[in-house]
């Protein structure tokens, strides 16, 4: 089983990203369970979304304490002291940032993928909604999903012009993510 934890803020699409991820994995024949945790449903409030993926049905209904992968949509959240707590060895880290990763953020991390998803989103979608771009980056950096599965999952959630723009954003995330391995 793989456990993915997504950190974002309300309005950035963290919750939707977790659901799109779930759809993409289901399309590849996996079992998924994905849910967010937030107290107050407001824009700007920090949101955490938990996605579990496995070849067998997922029974646990708890938050994720030992993630295999962290996706951070808002770079401001990097200062969270507990961000990397419990990260399993061989972990994957996907970060939305315009700056490169200077050093290995945590000793348990094996793969880091950085992409300026905010910029790409503003370019392609016209708004700072970096979620789909980061999903593309995730597919490329982790190798756990085909880009195709993500692109096929998006129409379940978006349509029309906004769908096309997000497809481009996801594709660019896939191609432009800078992957570092430790």
């Amino acid at each position, binding site marked *: 089983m793989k456990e993915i934890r997504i950190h974002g803020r309300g309005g950035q699409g963290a919750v939707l990203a*977790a*659901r799109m991820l779930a759809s993409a994995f289901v399309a590849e024949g996996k079992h998924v*369970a*994905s*849910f967010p*945790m937030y107290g107050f*449903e407001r824009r700007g409030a920090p949101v955490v979304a938990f996605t579990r993926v496995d070849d067998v049905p997922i029974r*646990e*209904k*708890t938050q994720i304490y030992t993630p295999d992968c962290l996706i951070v949509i808002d770079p401001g959240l990097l200062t969270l002291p507990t961000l990397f707590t419990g990260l399993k060895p061989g972990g994957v880290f996907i970060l939305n940032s315009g700056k490169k990763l200077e050093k290995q953020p945590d000793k348990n991390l094996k793969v880091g993928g950085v992409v300026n998803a905010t910029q790409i989103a503003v370019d392609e979608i016209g708004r700072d909604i970096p979620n789909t771009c980061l999903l593309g980056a995730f597919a490329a950096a982790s190798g756990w999903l085909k880009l195709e599965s993500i692109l096929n999952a998006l129409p379940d959630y978006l349509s029309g012009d906004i769908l096309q723009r997000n497809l481009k954003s996801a594709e660019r995330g896939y191609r432009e993510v800078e992957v570092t391995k430790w």
Partner: protein
Amino acid sequence: MVSAQKGQVRVITGNAVGAYGALLCRPEVVAAYPITPQSEIAEQIAQFVNNGELDAEYVEVEGENSAMNVVLGASVAGARVFTATSSYGLVFMYDALQETSGYRAPVVMVNANRETPGIHAVSSGQQDMVSTRDTGWVQIIVENDQEILDQIIMSYRLAEDNNILLPVMVNYDGFYLSYLAEAVEIPLIEDVDAFLAPLKKQTPRQKLVPGVNIGCGTHGIEMGYVEARYKHCQAMERVKPKVDEIDKAFGDYFGRYYGGQIEEYRTDDADIIILASGSATGTVRTVVDSKREKGIKVGLVKLRLFRPFPAERLIEALQGKKAIGVIDRSVGFGWKYGPICTELRALSREIGTAPILSYIDGLANLDITIPHIERVVDELDTAAKGKPYQEVTWIPMEE
């Protein structure tokens, strides 16, 4: 017997599933007020009605008390109805809940479990269900998104059965299930129609009709009151075997069985048992399997039916066991044990001499984690061996 066709598999949240459950059962009147963590059900059903997918009268109400009164009125006028709420909303309709069951109106409602007023918490917990257990409703608790959908369908078959005629509350953990996206198989509406078709073969139930001299819910003076309450309680007793019967019929038709009043997981040869309900049961299954691999004979009894309390099935499942741990996701004011534990203890004499340990955990969005459950198993193991044990544990207070 003919089976249902395979439905469409979609990745959707528990709330969306609640709305689909309503859609598939074709209610004629819906009145629901939004409240976290259920808001999306009210919104989604409104969308279904708006785009013509659901042919229902959607009454916009200004609060949950009105919501229950609206669906009660529609129900006694003969309509199939649906509503949804949570916590503050559920207690806001407290008087209407009792009217509904007293009138024997077959209302089906989903309740996204959330903590109740007193200490403001926008978070998961079963306190709302527990605080309405004496309203005369059937209360069922589910474990995952698929079960929400399936149970809504089964609830209509239960509620509208002429031998039952009781309102049914389908409880699922807010936050843990309401926003949980999982792959869910959505049956075809024709198959749901077929499953609910036996209800149409019954003598139509009494209903209010303008111009016809018939009343409902009149004063019960002395023996009128006693008789109505007696009949209500008798109906509650009939719910128990009926839940098992409907579960079997559902499983035979759709291919998914849930066990009825309770589900027993690896209990046959178990020495120790954990009794749990709701989404946490999924986590308990994982621990049961891992502890079994270490040689501990532990099993899980998943409580599905809370009201009426499935006494007979529980006695059968727990008789002769060496220790039982009850995980309550709520508190019992007036007893030191959690609510479900207190009720189980009423069956102590029939169950035997096994120690019954009470665990209160998972309040206010605090997880019932794998380490917590492992601790429960270890303590049950100790108690089963005759060693001293702690009768009541509030797990979060000990951390």
